[in-house]
């Protein structure tokens, strides 16, 4: 474990060196994500300029849930963005062989290789949203609120990362699966809004099948109301853990099925 932490420091340091060379690239990526988020917020602003509340949700509450949804998304984006490349390029081009020859865990190596600083655009939006909405909401605050927030963020991130690992691992069998990852990943936007606006089928889907509701809505409502901690937070922890174990299993099975595509 210590060895991996040390390795990760080296990987990130290496990445930051590369980054310093391409400062403009980094800025453009981050600005792009910032603008993309900003446009969505203008949309929300226009809606709320005409109605007082969305199915009983106040503007600030919606912003809080939206901001909360960006926490796991940003962390996942920052650290595990390279997984996309597994499905899009690495396996199809036979580049995966490289990872097999190294004396470290393949999954860890793939993830650690890239550190996606573009995510700072999302991070900034996330901080702004939370900083704007929290003071306007009467959030019950206890000594354990912040530790709980941190813990739940980690498990919510695991939900994202695990789904990405699983869909990327499909390419061990099919050579390319970037589009499957994309398809699943797009459903995460359902989690940005209060799930009560969806019909029962969609609610069930994003709660029990692809549990994106646990990445934002459920934990965020716990922090907003202090109610139902067992379901809201426990659900996130369970979903994160189960999906992660499943992801590791699928990845390892995939490794066994892997045949190099390179020549």
């Amino acid at each position, binding site marked *: 474990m210590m060895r991996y932490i040390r390795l990760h420091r080296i990987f990130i340091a290496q990445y930051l060196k590369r980054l310093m060379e391409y400062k403009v690239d980094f800025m453009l990526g981050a*600005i*792009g994500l910032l603008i993309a988020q900003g446009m969505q917020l203008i949309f929300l602003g226009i809606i709320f300029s005409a109605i007082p509340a*969305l199915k009983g949700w106040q503007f600030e509450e919606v912003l809080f849930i939206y901001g909360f949804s960006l926490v796991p998304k940003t962390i996942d984006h920052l650290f595990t963005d390279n997984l996309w490349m597994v499905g899009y390029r690495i396996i199809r081009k036979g580049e995966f062989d490289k990872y097999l020859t190294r004396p470290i865990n393949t999954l860890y190596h793939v993830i650690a290789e890239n550190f996606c600083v573009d995510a700072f655009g999302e991070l900034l939006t996330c901080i702004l949203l939370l900083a704007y909405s929290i003071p306007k909401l009467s959030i019950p605050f206890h000594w354990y609120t912040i530790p709980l927030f941190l813990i739940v963020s980690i498990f919510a991130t695991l939900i994202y990362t695990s789904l990405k690992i699983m869909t990327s691992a499909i390419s061990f069998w099919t050579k390319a699966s970037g589009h499957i990852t994309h398809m699943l990943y797009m459903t995460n936007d359902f989690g940005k809004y209060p799930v009560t*606006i969806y019909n029962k089928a969609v609610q069930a889907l994003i709660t029990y099948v692809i549990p994106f509701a646990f990445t934002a809505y459920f934990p965020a409502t716990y922090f907003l109301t202090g109610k139902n901690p067992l379901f809201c937070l426990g659900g996130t922890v369970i979903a994160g853990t189960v999906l992660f174990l499943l992801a590791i299993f699928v990845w390892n099975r995939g490794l066994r099925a892997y045949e190099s595509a390179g020549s």
Partner: protein
Amino acid sequence: MSRVKRFFRTYTPFTRAGMQEMVAYRANFLCFLIGEIMASFIMYFVWKAVFDSSGSETFMGFTMEDMVVYLFITFLAGYLTYSDGAFTVGEEIIDGSIAMRMIRPCSFEMCFLFQELGNRIISVSMIFVPIVAGVEIYRYVQAGEVRFQPIYFLLFLLSLVFAYMISFYFNVCYGFMAFFFKNLWGTTLIKETVVNFLSGAIVPLAFLPAGLANVLNFLPFASLSYTPVMIYMGMYSYSEIAWRMGLQIFWLLVMYGLSKLIWRSAVRHLSVQGG
């Protein structure tokens, strides 16, 4: 006449190649599409909640029925007019392989255009009918009568062709600009979100403050998806349609001229570097 014939004989192979490419990757395309259309469904639920909460039948002049048509036809128009064929131009300028294109006896942008048309033929045949049929069935169930108007539909198709051509030449220009930016992912993201917003794909332009909406209605971006969608919905009178299409043709000419201008200066630039 023979020139027209030769023109098509030269470029139809590109269309065929584009079609074959699309057929080869159709599973990927479908997955991609399902992911993309998810966003429209999320918007559907958000708007439904808005209409439920506002307590009135209309929201800034739109009914829920209009909103559904707007969302899905905008998705369709946005998808059909999306053009990235010319994007590789930028890359080819950087690595010099553009030289190979320049010595061929065909126009480089026509190659892209016809290849992309091949792509579109396949993708249109896969999504156009399901989406239009879906929207019309929804309207029929909601309103209890057939709302489909063939004349507006034909005008919509015509407007969509203009929109596609504007988008094509706009992206040719962008492809040349990509030469200056290295992070294609970042700049493309910026371009796409800004274009999306300015073209009314995120919020209908009618919902924006009047001054801003008026300006955006004149910009080329409204011609990309807002104009065809409004025509489809029957929001414009015939005289307004004529005027909007005139505007589309105007922007098409501007984009065409601009792409030629940039192309010429890019060629000159190339010849300075080459040797």
